[in-house]
């Protein structure tokens, strides 16, 4: 089975790292095949970015994501830019304060509108944890990598002194999905 995820936003939000963590969780802790392809414009900060992650039980031949099962957008520009590869009926998660999803899209996809950035800023206490909040949401919604594996992959990537903060972000993220 091949499952494609896309994380998008603007440079500096940490979407790329979130994607990398997801791929590493699949490879290191679930013994699956995974690939990670970042796309960014020349600008590093502020430019639209996306990270495509493919997770599969078998060898992945074609490494570009073009039939997305799970799309996450926390910036309006990238929602419009990158939603076209989403499969009908697939999951789309947006930051409700950033992205206005048109009604027709709500009919086509399973849309979740969540306060991701606000949660990071106010409930976790640091806006830079928005990407980890996103991973918490993804653990619950995509149901492709177990929360345990995902958290282990987070541990590998974040500095030890921020681990508690990130753990909190991850758990609050999961709890956003009712």
């Amino acid at each position: 089975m091949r499952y494609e995820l896309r994380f998008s936003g603007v440079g500096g939000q940490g979407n790329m790292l979130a994607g990398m963590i997801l791929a590493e969780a699949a490879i290191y802790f679930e013994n699956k095949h995974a690939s990670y392809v970042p796309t960014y414009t020349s600008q590093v900060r502020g430019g639209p970015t996306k990270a495509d992650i493919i997770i599969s039980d078998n060898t992945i031949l074609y490494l570009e994501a073009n039939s997305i099962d799970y799309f996450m957008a926390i910036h309006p520009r990238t929602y419009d830019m990158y939603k076209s590869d989403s499969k009908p009926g697939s999951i789309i998660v947006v930051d409700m304060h950033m992205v206005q999803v048109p009604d027709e899209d709500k009919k086509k996809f399973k849309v979740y509108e969540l306060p991701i950035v606000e949660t990071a800023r106010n409930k976790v206490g640091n806006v830079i944890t928005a990407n980890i909040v996103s991973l918490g949401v993804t653990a619950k919604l995509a149901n492709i990598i177990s929360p345990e594996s995902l958290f282990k992959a987070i541990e590998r990537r974040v500095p030890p002194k921020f681990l508690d903060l990130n753990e909190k972000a991850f758990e609050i993220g999961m709890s956003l999905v009712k």
Partner: protein
Amino acid sequence: MKRAVVANGNEMVVEGAIDAGCRFFAGYPITPSSEVAEGMARKLPKLGGVFLQMEDEIASIACAIGGSLGGEKTMTASSGPGISLKQEGVGLACIAEIPLVIINAMRGGPSTGLPTRIAQSDIMQARWGTHGDHPAVALCPGSVAECYTETIRAFNIAEELRTPVYVLSDAFLAHLSTKVELPGKEELKIANRLRPTVKPEEYYPYDTRFGDIPPLADYFSGYRFHVTGLNHDKTGFPNIDPVLQESEEERLINKVLKRQEAISTYENYKLEDAQIVVVAYGSNASGAKEAVDAARESGIKVGLFRPITVWPFPSIPFQEVAASAKQIIVTEVNLGQIVYEIERIMLGGRAVTEIRNGNLIFDTRHPRSSAELSTVLQANGTPIRPNQILSQIKEVA
């Protein structure tokens, strides 16, 4: 023992270079190859090696040439505009026969083009980019793991043949991270240039007494010699004698052609009974494989021919494949480059095995192909999708 890591193409190029024994890098940053420079900048100082960020790409290749003459295995890396700037240096390394590896993470467009997007548009540049008649070796890794193994192979060929070797990756492979299985270090074959054993007064840098690839001494090793970008004789000094220059020019090219059976690697995928042959290389071949698999599921007899070495093109193996094919589909992420080589071969343009006294010596073992040729080309900065290739397969099936 096999090793498994998660890495992207640029990181694997760095690993490969280091494991091949590269201890000298000179480069200039450019997307999407910069991580090669950054990786070398992290690793080389730790190993006591030299990393230099030069003032431009021209200086980078010149400096790498100097380092190679100084006795090191050297590498430079760039993309698009930077590779264009390096061309004069490529020619110098060719004629002076200086081992060197050049990484080109191919990106889209002429000029600044599409800096972050994939292309395979420098295939012909790798063959003919520098002026004058010259040999060309270019390897095209098809996966992140091959970024590692092909970089090592590039060093081996550069050292063994005393010539610059390109590794052509692309913007997609460069940044694609995935799990890669690498061969165990003990399985690696590492080649080193032949160094002279004669007495210094008997040494000449282009002395064919020891074969068509003469030993190369390191500067300051006691063998004092001269190197020039001018055509020269065995002593390394300028010489314009037409008889000598004909044989020397031919030797330069023949040293590659005569070894093409070993150098020109390729993969045959599901070709045994194939009537339709897809030709794809580099990262584009993974989509082609998926298309082949899908077409096979619907009963179409199709396979993939994947050159891993693009120059010299594996012409003889391709002739064998083409001889029994009914349809050949060339797909590449450009608006037509390798397809011209394919067409030439199909029309009876045989593999050239050697140039002898101005005559091209062709391999005549295989008949010309009567297959029809079609293409799936794209140069818009995005990879070609398996569906595009699949529909072409179905179209001609």
